[in-house]
């Protein structure tokens, strides 16, 4: 997979530092993501991986550093801006809309693409209905893609964990993102579920050419999937490079691989 020739840099984070009050979560992190690549961030729990994603899509605002996305440099991302700029994500502990069906959850993922105004939607006719149908179709394609037809109308609250993760991925895909942030998409899954999820990640990357930033614990998975890997440890950046480089990096071995797994 490493011989794939990757596009130019779409996302560049420079010297990001983030702290909550006294606690320093991220310390001068810098790396970039190239178009169409699968980029992994690994590290032990509390290494600040999720915080990094939260910085990228603007949930957290770093005190130092800059983020360059699609040529625009800003000191911090804003959540809505990130979404509007085609950054979608999934969450470590599932953040689905519990009260809604699978279908509605994924439909909600398309909210940015729906233009008709309140009045049209109130009479549910003409433009509004046309839009609903057109987007329903798109969503159905995603449902088909993720093979979740049989849970289409089930309230997500009732779904097993693995399925919820899938639905969440679907919701992220619905936004047709350029950059997809996956926060431990395979955590707590059994082997088959993991395999499916891997397949989906790869398919997404190659069917839609989506750039993917991935946090994952399962080293096997990471090494197979990723083009390049960033290693964090307690907010510090230990290494950055192709899987085998990282694998052979001493600092990493000490800090992470050394520790069981």
């Amino acid at each position, binding site marked *: 997979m490493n011989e794939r020739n990757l596009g130019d840099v779409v996302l560049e984070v420079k010297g990001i530092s983030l702290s*909550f009050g006294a606690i320093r979560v991220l310390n001068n992190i810098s790396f970039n993501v190239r178009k169409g690549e699968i980029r992994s961030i690994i590290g032990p729990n509390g290494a600040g991986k999720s915080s990094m994603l*939260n910085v990228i899509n603007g*949930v957290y605002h770093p005190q130092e550093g800059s983020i360059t996305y699609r040529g625009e440099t800003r000191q911090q991302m804003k959540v809505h801006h990130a979404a509007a700029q085609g950054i979608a994500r999934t*969450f*470590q502990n599932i953040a689905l809309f519990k009260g809604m069906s699978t279908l509605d959850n994924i439909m909600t993922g398309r909210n940015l693409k729906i233009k008709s105004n309140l009045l049209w939607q109130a009479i549910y006719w003409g433009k509004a209905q046309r839009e609903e149908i057109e987007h329903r179709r798109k969503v159905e394609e995603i449902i088909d893609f993720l093979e979740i037809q049989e849970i289409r109308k089930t309230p997500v609250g009732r779904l097993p964990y693995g399925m919820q993760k899938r639905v969440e991925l679907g919701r992220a895909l619905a936004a047709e993102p350029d950059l997809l942030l996956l926060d431990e998409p395979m955590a707590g899954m059994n082997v088959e579920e993991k395999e499916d999820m891997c397949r989906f990640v790869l398919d997404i990357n190659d069917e839609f050419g989506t750039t993917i930033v991935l946090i994952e614990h399962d080293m096997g998975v990471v090494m197979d999937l990723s083009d390049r890997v960033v290693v964090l440890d307690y907010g510090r950046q230990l290494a950055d490079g192709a899987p085998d480089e990282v694998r052979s990096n001493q600092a990493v071995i000490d800090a992470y691989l050394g520790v069981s797994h």
Partner: protein
Amino acid sequence: MRIERDVIYIIIVTLFLMVAIPWTMGQISEDIFFEWPFFFEVAIGGLLAGVMYSLVALGFVLIFKASGVFNFAQGAMVLFSALTLVGLNELGMPIWLAIIATLVVMLLLAVVIERVVLRSLVNQEHIILFMATIGITYFLDGFGQTLWGSEVKTLNLGIPSDPGFYFDGKILINDFDLVAALLAGVLVIVLALFFQYTRIGRALRAVADDHQAALSVGIPLKHIWVIVWAVAGIVALVAGIMWGSKLGVQFSLALIALKALPVLILGGFTSVPGAIVGGLIIGAGEKLAEVFIAPLIGGGIEDWFAYMLALAFLVFRPQGLFGEKIIERV
């Protein structure tokens, strides 16, 4: 607890405004009478009333802290306790005995509420529990008045209620308010100590943070709930006595709850000091506004001024002055 810097700023600014606005009003409009002694008289009157507000707010805070329940019934408990007290008193019970009896009643009430309501609604969404407490409110209002009738009763504890003059007569303060405030203050301190230094108190604080911790303290959740509701009941009784003997025991006491709400959001649902500071600010602010601003806009603003004031604070601190800051985790 460490008070954040901006809280202090906010309070300072508030104090400044509380003085500045009335003064300016006095200057710009002739139908507002401003004079320093009068100002202080009003302010102090307000503060004293504020202490009473704090008292009711305290009941809310205790329960919210310990069980996450937004207890709308606090006002009703005030009324109910007062009614019971007077009722028993009228039945010929000496006042001290009546007070003890009422305490017992409030304790029983707490037990019943825990048994019947809380236990069967455990782990429901907050709004459901909130609605339940409104249900309790209706019940208590109805029950109390069914039992003791709805006509206005006077409650006399022999507290001097004639106006007293202080600072060589420049400032007039109602002695009753003074006494009431003192009593309230004492109660507040007692409670604070109770929370700081007793095992149960600590357990209660633990519960607020997380229920597991509370269990580890070794007190079953249901007991804790009974206890907080009982304590809230006692606080209600005290408030009931104070307000009751001030305004007479009548249905309107139940509405004190509505007065306490702004105090709460201003101080923060989970903070005892918040309830106190909030009470004082609201009390004083309200009176000052009533006297120095209201005349300009048609008066009678005390219904909502407290709320607007609180709202203004919320815009700066959505979690209230002393409430914990919520950090969004994803």
